């Protein structure tokens, strides 16, 4: 008997559904009316919550990041009266619209999973954070309607209404940032349920003092405050009973809240830019016309530029967050950088290395489409060497016992290499990071200068000044890095490393100012031929988006895993069967699965957008204009 293809698929589908029902049936057969934990069918609670949370975060990051730069690009278009910018900003927001409902949907899925699988934890969290949850809903409505107005009103609110439209864009970012800050407070509270004496509420100050007096009869109201400063960490819970004793604001304003807020805010810009660039790269690769290629080349360049703007300060924000985690709890800090999660940070170094190498590669490739950029090609090999050496230092593990054989360990005389071991310490790694950042900035500077000849009379002096700034900054950063080996850690973390950061930022600022003035009335010696990019460079943009996504997934594992066997660190233990830290191999596999799901969903959403567009005219006059435009 011959079975038709359609019928075969139907039978296969029925069999799959049957097995799926069989697999989840035991979950429904259990009495779990009053359970602390309920198992999620087949994949388990942790895996289900992990996937939903990470996907929600990735989409959330995208829809919060994109409006930040979309509104800036729109503003540039408005001020310069260049319609291309306006169109591009609108296209960015269209991408955002598609992802917005998926973000909300995934948020709903996450909440359902958490309420179903972790009722006791959710009960505790909602007991503390109830008011903020109501606030969150209000913010969410605000953001939704503002986004609708901002997107659907784009064409209507042109001309004299443009100012109001920009105001909507700014408002959208205010809502979005506030939403992120509120939800960050929930998860950072789980990591660090404490805050400093100087900023905690009077109510908690008093109850904490009473606890100290009750726990130690030798203390008196006069002596109890001895040694307590504004920086002393005060737990939000009674240290004996675990009862929450503080205000909602204390819980929100916990010790790691603001560092996570800043880190995510910058990260959203970098991630949003990279996804937009990857979208543009895909459109570039499948584009049929020169005009389309030109348009998406320009869009990809802009996306990558935005991602770079976010990527450059991101290590500084990450360093601050890491420092705060050490300050909150040294055990947690040691677990992060020196123990359970230390190898994760080697993977992180590899991935950030990929990001910097990829971003520079794209800039260098882009110089190939600018006439007159050839003069900078001779510097490229030295920049490659600088980046590779710095990435090598960043990637070198401190302790090599896990990746050495017994005879190699014996030859080294221990788990640390007597010379390369120095690269494993933070002072060496921070030095390397700052130099990679400055090299990337130099690449961008060359890109900016390509095809232009300065006419300022002081251009020679200016170039000497810029070269000297770079030279002395690198020398200073390296010297500070070497001194860092010999000083107390407290001094290195709080004084030397911030100075390295200040020097790197000051160089970027000073050189930008000088360069802008030097090239203000520059002659154009070559044009940018948009669309004349290699396909390789476009694959690099896609690689960057994949790397960003993986990196966010891995660092999410670190942030969450740092709590170890606690739902709320030191207060509420995890007594579920999942109360163990999954090994790095499992985390990597999970992150890879999540990344595939994310890109499948993003691809589908973007494809839907394209599907609707197909009937419209393929090339607008503005896009055609880009193809012949010579200015960047």
């Amino acid at each position: 008997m011959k079975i038709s293809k359609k019928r075969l698929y139907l039978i296969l589908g029925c069999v799959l559904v049957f097995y799926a029902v069989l697999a989840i049936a035991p979950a429904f057969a259990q009495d779990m009316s009053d359970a602390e934990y309920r198992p999620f069918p087949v994949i388990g609670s942790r895996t289900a919550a992990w996937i939903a949370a990470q996907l929600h975060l990735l989409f959330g990051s995208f829809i919060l990041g994109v409006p930040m730069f979309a509104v800036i690009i729109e503003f540039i278009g408005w001020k310069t009266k260049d319609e291309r910018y306006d169109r591009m900003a609108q296209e960015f927001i269209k991408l955002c619209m598609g992802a917005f409902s998926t973000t909300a949907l995934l948020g709903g899925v996450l909440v359902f999973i958490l309420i179903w699988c972790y009722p006791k934890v959710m009960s505790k969290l909602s007991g503390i954070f109830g008011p903020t949850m109501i606030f969150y809903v209000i913010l969410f409505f605000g953001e939704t309607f503002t986004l609708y107005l901002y997107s659907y009103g784009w064409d209507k609110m042109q001309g004299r209404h443009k100012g109001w439209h920009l105001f909507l864009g700014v408002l959208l970012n205010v809502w979005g940032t506030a939403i992120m800050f509120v939800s960050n407070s929930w998860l950072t509270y789980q990591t660090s349920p404490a805050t400093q004496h100087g900023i905690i509420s009077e109510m908690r100050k008093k109850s904490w003092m009473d606890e100290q007096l009750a726990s130690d009869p030798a203390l008196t109201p006069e002596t109890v405050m001895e040694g307590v400063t504004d920086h002393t960490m005060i737990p939000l819970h009674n240290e004996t009973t675990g009862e929450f004793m503080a205000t909602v604001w204390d819980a929100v304003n916990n010790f790691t809240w603001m560092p996570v807020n800043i880190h995510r805010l910058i990260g959203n810009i970098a991630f949003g830019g990279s996804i937009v660039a990857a979208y543009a790269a895909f459109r570039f690769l499948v584009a049929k016309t020169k005009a389309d290629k030109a348009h998406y080349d320009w869009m990809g360049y802009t996306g990558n530029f935005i991602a770079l703007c976010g990527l450059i300060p991101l290590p500084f924000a990450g360093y601050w967050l890491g420092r705060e985690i050490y300050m909150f709890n040294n055990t947690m800090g040691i677990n992060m950088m020196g123990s359970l999660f230390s190898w994760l940070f080697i993977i992180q170094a590899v991935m950030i290395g990929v990001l910097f190498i990829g971003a520079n590669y794209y800039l260098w490739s882009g110089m190939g489409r600018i006439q007159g950029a050839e003069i900078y090609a001779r510097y490229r090999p030295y920049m490659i060497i600088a980046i590779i050496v710095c990435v090598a230092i960043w990637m070198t593990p401190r302790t090599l016992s896990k990746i050495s054989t017994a005879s190699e360990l014996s030859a080294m005389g221990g788990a640390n290499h007597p010379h390369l071991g120095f690269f494993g310490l933070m002072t060496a790694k921070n030095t390397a990071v700052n130099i990679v950042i400055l090299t990337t900035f130099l690449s961008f500077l060359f890109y900016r200068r390509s095809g232009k000849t300065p006419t300022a009379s002081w251009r020679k002096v200016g170039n000497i000044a810029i070269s000297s700034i770079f030279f002395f900054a690198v020398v200073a950063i390296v010297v500070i890095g070497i001194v860092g080996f010999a000083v107390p850690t407290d001094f290195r973390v709080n004084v030397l490393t911030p100075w390295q950061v200040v020097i790197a930022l000051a160089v970027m600022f000073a050189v930008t100012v000088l360069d802008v003035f030097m090239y203000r009335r520059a002659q154009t010696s070559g044009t940018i031929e948009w669309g004349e990019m290699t396909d390789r460079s476009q694959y690099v943009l896609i690689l960057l988006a994949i790397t960003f996504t993986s990196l966010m997934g891995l660092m999410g594992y670190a942030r969450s895993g740092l709590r170890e066997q606690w739902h709320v660190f030191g207060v509420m233990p995890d007594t579920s069967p999942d109360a163990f830290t999954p090994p790095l191999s499992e985390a990597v596999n999970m992150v890879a699965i999540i990344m595939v799901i994310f890109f499948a969903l993003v691809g589908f959403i973007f494809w839907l957008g394209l599907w609707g567009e197909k009937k419209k005219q393929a090339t607008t006059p503005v896009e055609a204009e880009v193809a012949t435009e010579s200015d960047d």
Partner: protein
Amino acid sequence: MKKLSLFTICLIILVGSWVFLRFVVGGIISVPIPGSVIAMYMGLIVIAILVHISVEDSLFREFRRPILETLVDDKRRLHRRVLVVLIPLLLLGYTYLIIAQRANPPGSPRDAHPSPPLELTYKDEVIGTMQDVVNPFRHYEKDDPEAFKAHVENGKRVYHQNCFYCHGDHLDGQGHFAPYLQPLPANFQDPGIIPNFQESFFFWRIAKGGPGLPAAGGPWDSAMPVWEDTLTKDEIWDVILFLSDYTGYQPRTFGEAH
């Protein structure tokens, strides 16, 4: 003199880098570098070469020109024949080297540092949280230098009576017993040891020894005795003062915050 092709230059860089890492850094300048680390560095060098040759189409064409010529040019017939023999021979040699080497067990899978507990204890007495406990004699360094000196001297006595057999008289982990221990005793002269940890961490490690190490991150295989069975609390704090005084490294502190 004939100019070297880009391909040849890249090949020289690749082989030269390996020789430099394997024999110069890992032989003349320092002790051998583990193979995995060399592989990691070589991977980066390969990436650097790929970046350089592919960033411009002209460079890529120049790079592949000798490869294409060797594959198709009649003048390069001899090169082709040599390669057809040489490549399998090299692979054969590499395979032989892998198979012929003696059994070489992997190193320890343990983490770099053990994860300390949240609370510091001495025997069954809770001293405080790991975060907040400080060395009770550390303040003498500023307040009473003579008293501080006396504590350091006592720490020195305790160290030489108990610790130096493994950790060495220079505190560099090269004591008499060290060659027979795996993992090796801690080297306090290493800048990555004392400055990275609070004094409470060292108290915990000395008091609890190898048996007190956590279940996670192991196997630790540490031969360190449980010194709280032998030493008093004050003696442990004194020996910690001696470690930092002798090496010149200050244990980690958190300044104003704590």
